[in-house]
């Protein structure tokens, strides 16, 4: 499903007065497209993602999924949180089944879908473990299964690999990319890792801390799965690093 962000404004009141985080944001994510928000810390990436998820209300503007305006959180948009936000009192199975229960999927289909998801994420046999018993990577994959379980039209991810070590990060990126290629769901992801953005995305949106202005919208025109050592891969990372430099310059100018 297509995702449309139109004329969105968001400001937060703080001690010094109003802080405009996002002003006049326009962004479209095409059906089945993987788009990444890249930008320095504090530029409003999480805020924008939370607006799309329906956790935060913008002062102005609209977000549409397909032709339905977003009015609050809902199972049409699966969310993967930075710290996964798995329910610690539920097992892997309980966590992955939770959205299916809430959306009224029948017991038999639930069991089948659970197995399919766990197989896809290499989590077979882990159904009965609690989150506290999982490694960081297993938690992350459980969160992916859970977000996909309600069969969402859009997947929202806030730094989904933030809390795992470098090797695991690369591995999980490859796995998530494979899962995405299989499902071709519309994705909006937040990261501040240039490598990750180039590896995963169809388009990378570079955001500035200056009111969330879009500095550049870069299409990554490389065949998948991507070769991290190729020359063109490096051209893209260099380009994005340059753009990020501009964003950091904005940050200095602003403060």
């Amino acid at each position, binding site marked *: 499903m297509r995702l449309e962000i139109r004329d969105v404004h968001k400001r937060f009141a703080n001690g010094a007065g109003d802080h405009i985080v996002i002003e006049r944001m326009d962004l479209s994510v095409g059906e089945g497209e993987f788009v990444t928000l890249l930008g320095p810390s504090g530029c409003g990436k999480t805020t924008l993602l939370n607006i799309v998820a329906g956790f935060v209300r913008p002062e102005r503007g609209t977000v549409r999924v397909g032709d339905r305006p977003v009015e609050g959180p809902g199972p049409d948009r699966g969310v993967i949180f930075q710290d996964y*936000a798995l*329910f610690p009192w539920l097992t892997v199975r309980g966590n992955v089944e939770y959205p299916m229960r809430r959306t009224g999927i029948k017991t038999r289909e639930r069991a089948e879908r659970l197995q399919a998801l766990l197989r896809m994420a290499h989590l077979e046999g882990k159904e009965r473990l*609690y989150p506290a018993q999982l490694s960081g990577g297993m938690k992350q994959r459980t969160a992916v299964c859970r977000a996909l379980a*309600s069969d969402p039209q859009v997947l929202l991810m806030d730094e989904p690999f933030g809390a795992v070590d470098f090797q695991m990060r690369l591995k999980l990126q490859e796995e998530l990319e494979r899962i995405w290629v299989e499902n071709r769901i519309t994705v909006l992801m937040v990261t501040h890792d240039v490598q990750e953005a180039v590896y995963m995305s169809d388009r990378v949106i570079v955001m500035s801390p200056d009111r969330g202005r879009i500095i550049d919208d870069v299409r990554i025109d490389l065949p998948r799965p991507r070769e991290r050592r190729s020359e063109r891969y490096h051209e893209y990372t260099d380009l994005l690093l340059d753009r990020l430099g501009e964003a950091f310059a904005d940050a200095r100018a602003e403060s």
Partner: protein
Amino acid sequence: MASAGSSLVDRVGDEEILTGTGGVDGRGARGRQSWWWVLSLIIVFGVWQVAAWRYDSDLLMPQPVDALRALGEAVVDPIVLTNLGITVRRVLIGFVISMAIGVPVGYLMGHSPRVGEVMDPLINTFRQVPIMAWVPLSIIWFGLGDGPTIFIITFVGVFAIILSTVAGVRAIPIELFHAARSMGASRSGLFRDVVLPATVPDVVTGARLALGAAWGSVICAEFIATSAGYGYLMVRAQSMMATDRLMALMILGALVGFLIDRGLVYANRQLAKWRYLT
């Protein structure tokens, strides 16, 4: 878990630390703990025995063996058991009332910042009055017998339950609510799906503190406000100068308190298995 002398708060604390150290380490720590237990009991009885020899007076310091014999008699004495039953019944009634008030109030305060703001100072004011200072007033209100004792038990327990529940609710990460909502939970479904399961351990901790405080204060209240119950029995033993029996009753009182606490620890482990994974 900890040595016999530590307060309930410390014991709750120890429990958390112990369960935090999972696996082999955790079991090792637990094994060491039970050795400390045995050792501290030996020390207590040893000092007691030395003191008994030194003072050589059954009134001031009876021999440990005499107290233990009295304990053996007490646990089969129908009068002791009846009065123990009366006290346990009071504790349970007071405890149920304090849960019935404390848990909902705790959830409300944790859920709504407005309610929290109003209730926090109120609760903290009432909490400052030493619990036994309520006894005379509660006798005026309820007369002698069950009334004042149950009042004291309820009163002393309700704060622990409220504070523990509030802390539990406030400690739930906002992401868990967001996650539930984004997976199709309704706003009202959040209580059942998130708040309730997340706070089970905190509510049980509150219950533990409440029961410990109740058991501690009920006997004291019974010294004054009743003509039946365990505390009353102790006053009677004292007035008959039966020191060995008095000490036996103290030991039995400690055992009952200990069993109640173990019962709640067990309940917590059953209700919130996910908190105690190794």
